[in-house]
């Protein structure tokens, strides 16, 4: 094995080990956020319907007190809001009660972070900004190095002059052909 190929393979191997975790993070999160139109990859939402007696309070304070009492909630809400005269929304940590005052119909929505996936998505979408931007840049550069060194790991019929050439060409043609199809069809 030549010295160049030896160092090529060492780089490929060691950088490969280093980026396993981040590749999994970006890969899993990539699939998750790719389907953002169909689901929320960061949060899950549970809905429950309750029925209480109609609320007759006149002032905002009376309406909130009466609603809390009927819902048997002792805790003070973080916030309350009335989008219109017949609706009251009570906000607790991760939980919203939307009360239709004339009927007493209540929609309870519970929002929860999707554990681990949320954190992966935050890193993938660079929510922390600052230092994470540079870490992500280094990761991207590492991926480029792993991709290029990967071309030259093997020689012979399974290397870049044989089987590797075909597979690499297919890998190039997939995005190019799709982009041309997207532009002209």
């Amino acid at each position, binding site marked *: 094995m030549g010295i160049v190929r030896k160092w090529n393979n060492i780089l490929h191997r060691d950088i490969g080990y280093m980026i396993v975790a981040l590749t999994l993070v970006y890969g899993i999160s990539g699939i998750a956020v790719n389907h953002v139109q169909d689901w929320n990859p960061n949060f899950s939402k549970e809905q429950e319907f309750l029925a209480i007696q109609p609320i007759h309070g006149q002032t905002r304070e009376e309406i909130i007190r009466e609603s809390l009492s009927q819902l048997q909630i002792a805790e003070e809400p973080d916030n309350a809001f009335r989008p219109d005269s017949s609706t009251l929304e009570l906000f607790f940590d991760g939980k919203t009660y939307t009360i239709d005052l004339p009927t007493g119909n209540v929609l309870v929505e519970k929002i929860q*972070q999707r554990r681990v996936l949320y954190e992966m998505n935050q890193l993938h979408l660079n929510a922390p900004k600052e230092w994470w931007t540079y870490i992500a840049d280094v990761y991207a550069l590492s991926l480029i190095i792993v991709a290029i060194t990967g071309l030259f790991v093997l020689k012979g019929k399974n290397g870049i002059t044989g089987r590797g050439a075909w597979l690499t060409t297919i890998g190039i043609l997939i995005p190019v052909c799709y982009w041309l199809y997207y532009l002209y069809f």
Partner: protein
Amino acid sequence: MFIKHLLSLLIILFIFTHNSFAAGKSYGKKITLKKTTKISHILAEPKKFDGKKVLVEGPIVDVCEHRGCWMKIGSDKEFESIKFKVDDGVIVIPMDAKGKSARAEGIVSVKTTSVSEQIEQGKKHAKETGEEFDASTITEPKTVIMLKGEGAVIK
């Protein structure tokens, strides 16, 4: 031994990151204004504020569920709220921000959309989401008052 140290490190990181979020979190640019403007004042006289930078505060009463690209902030007056719209991906407002309190800075935008523009937008939205759209429900121009969001602190 190595695994033990790694687990300890991960636990410390987890505790640190979760505690640091508890005090309130900043999104986007730093807030520059000191004085807040009442949302009711903006909604009462939108032309006066059009194009001006304002700092508002209030409860977050709704959040974009798909991309976190807007939130609605409740006004100091009943039945009123204002949309705080951010550029996709630049600021992502988390869905669990709903119900928390926000101090948010942005530029007031007052835009009147004609009937034909509304129909065009409605058709585009229906195509994207698969929802039904009835163009006959659009009968008059609509004025939308919102904030082009630059930065916010949510807690």
